[in-house]
């Protein structure tokens, strides 16, 4: 017979466990705690977030450590996901400091935006940002879209910049994110502006990551959309074609801050951005990918080297 007492005890243990677990989950909206100001005078910690992108996380970690060295309390909420996930959070004021890229962010906020130089794009971005958000002065470092080919392919057709793709006689297979097909700088632009013969567009969802690189190296695709700060470009002797016509928006690193970030904190962030050069970003990424170091180790080393902490 089912021992009633023991059974009931067991079931109630399960029920209690369930309630506890649920309670733990329910109170666990991490963002709310970060933004409430606890008491008068005690500043709430600044919420620093990052994309689900290791390079972005390194930059966010650098910001966090610099702010902490400056006496601020930081609440790290990294790896939030792609723009469609974190942008609403940013606009709602749940995030205080976020490393972004001027061109990509501008296009996300204003799909009709015209491109231009880095300064023009930055000015447009400042206008496009919603109330309560500010974009600080961008860094030199940029991580932008590029059309990349292998060294052999570049040698074969004497490719130097995007326009020279017109030299290619065989139909190309292009690889990149699925949104590439809809972008103004995508395969359609290559066809119409430069007359590049495109056979097929393959969607690889890792945003120029190792799968895309491998496909390029294996010659499954001949032209790939890879980000310029990707250490794989150097590691695999790939050639990122120059973009003098600026079909790709410039994507300098920029810090988006909320109202809660005061002048002192902004100054610290400005210092960091001023010190971040393009080569620096590539070598930071390389340490993560090739040396497999974690973001906090990389950030601390770089900040110490630059004398910022």
């Amino acid at each position, binding site marked *: 017979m089912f021992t009633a007492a023991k059974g009931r005890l067991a079931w109630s243990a399960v029920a209690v466990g369930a309630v506890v677990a649920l309670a733990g989950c329910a109170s666990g909206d991490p963002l709310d705690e970060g933004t409430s100001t606890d008491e008068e005078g005690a500043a709430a910690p600044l919420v620093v977030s990052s994309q689900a992108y290791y390079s972005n996380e390194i930059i966010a970690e650098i910001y966090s450590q610099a702010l902490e060295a400056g006496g601020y309390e930081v609440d790290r909420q990294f790896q939030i996901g*792609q723009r*469609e996930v974190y942008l609403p959070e940013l606009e709602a004021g749940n995030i205080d400091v976020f490393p972004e890229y001027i061109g990509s962010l501008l296009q996300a906020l204003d799909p009709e935006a015209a491109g231009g130089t880095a300064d023009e794009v930055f000015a447009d971005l400042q206008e496009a940002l919603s109330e309560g958000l500010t974009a600080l002065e961008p860094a030199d470092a940029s991580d932008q879209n590029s059309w990349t080919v292998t060294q052999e392919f570049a040698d074969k057709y004497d490719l130097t910049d995007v326009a020279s793709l017109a030299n290619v006689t065989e139909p190309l297979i292009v690889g990149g994110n*699925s*949104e590439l097909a*809809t972008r103004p700088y995508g395969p359609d632009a290559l066809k119409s502006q430069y007359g590049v013969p495109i056979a097929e567009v393959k969607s690889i*969802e890792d945003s120029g990551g*190792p799968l895309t690189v491998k*496909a390029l190296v294996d010659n*499954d695709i001949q032209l790939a959309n890879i980000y310029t700060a990707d250490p794989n470009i150097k590691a695999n002797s790939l050639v990122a074609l120059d973009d003098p016509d600026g079909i790709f928006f410039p994507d300098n690193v920029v810090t988006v801050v909320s109202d809660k970030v005061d002048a002192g904190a902004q100054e610290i962030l400005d210092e960091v951005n001023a010190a971040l050069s393009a080569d620096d970003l590539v070598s930071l990424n390389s340490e993560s990918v090739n040396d497999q170091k974690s973001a906090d180790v990389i950030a601390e080393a770089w900040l110490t080297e630059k004398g910022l902490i």
Partner: protein
Amino acid sequence: MNLIIDAIAWILDSAHYGGPNGIGARLFEHLWISVLSLLIAGAIAIPVGFFIGHTGKGKAAAVLVSGGVRALPTLGLISILGLSIGIGVQAPIIAFVVLAIPSMLAGAYAGFEAIDRRIVDSARSVGMTEWQIVGRVELPLGLPLLIGGIRSATLQVIATATLAAYISGGGLGSFIFLGLRTNDYTQMLAGSILVIALAIAFEGAFSVLQRLVVPAGVRAGQRTNVRSGSSRSVAAAE
């Protein structure tokens, strides 16, 4: 509700049907990737399941391996395989085969195990060889539960085949990822609805099939169970 109406309108829009990225092409890709994976998984899992069910050996190992394999996150598997094999359909197909094997295995051996041992003994006593027993006695009797296992595997593979698009394997997942990347919820929802519709179609076909394959003699003796098909198969098999 509006979003769903928009999504259905998107699906019905004839402009979305043509070309390599159209609904027709993607649907075809989704189907052949799923079916191929299921066939391969079946070719592996069903004979092994029959062996386990018929001889009674190796069940504990099978259950353990099945359970472990069932826990394998398909996206993780596709990622790892993609890093070594490259883009295309190969990595996803391998991952889907791995996904489908546990359910088919369970269906196969559960079907055999559910057969009354006395029937098998009687078959042996009238002189049937082992192979004849498997083919003429155990297989027909175990068919409903086997079909139940295949049905469960099919549902999982069709739902998960959306991940093939992650590494350029095509399929209905392309609409989902593209919609996700471009904030086009209509397209994303449309892709999801197509997958669900495909799953419904297969579920319906299988439920009819499961009822049809029950041998007439067995059907006569069963009490009428108005529920559509038994998936006690997978559950009871554990």
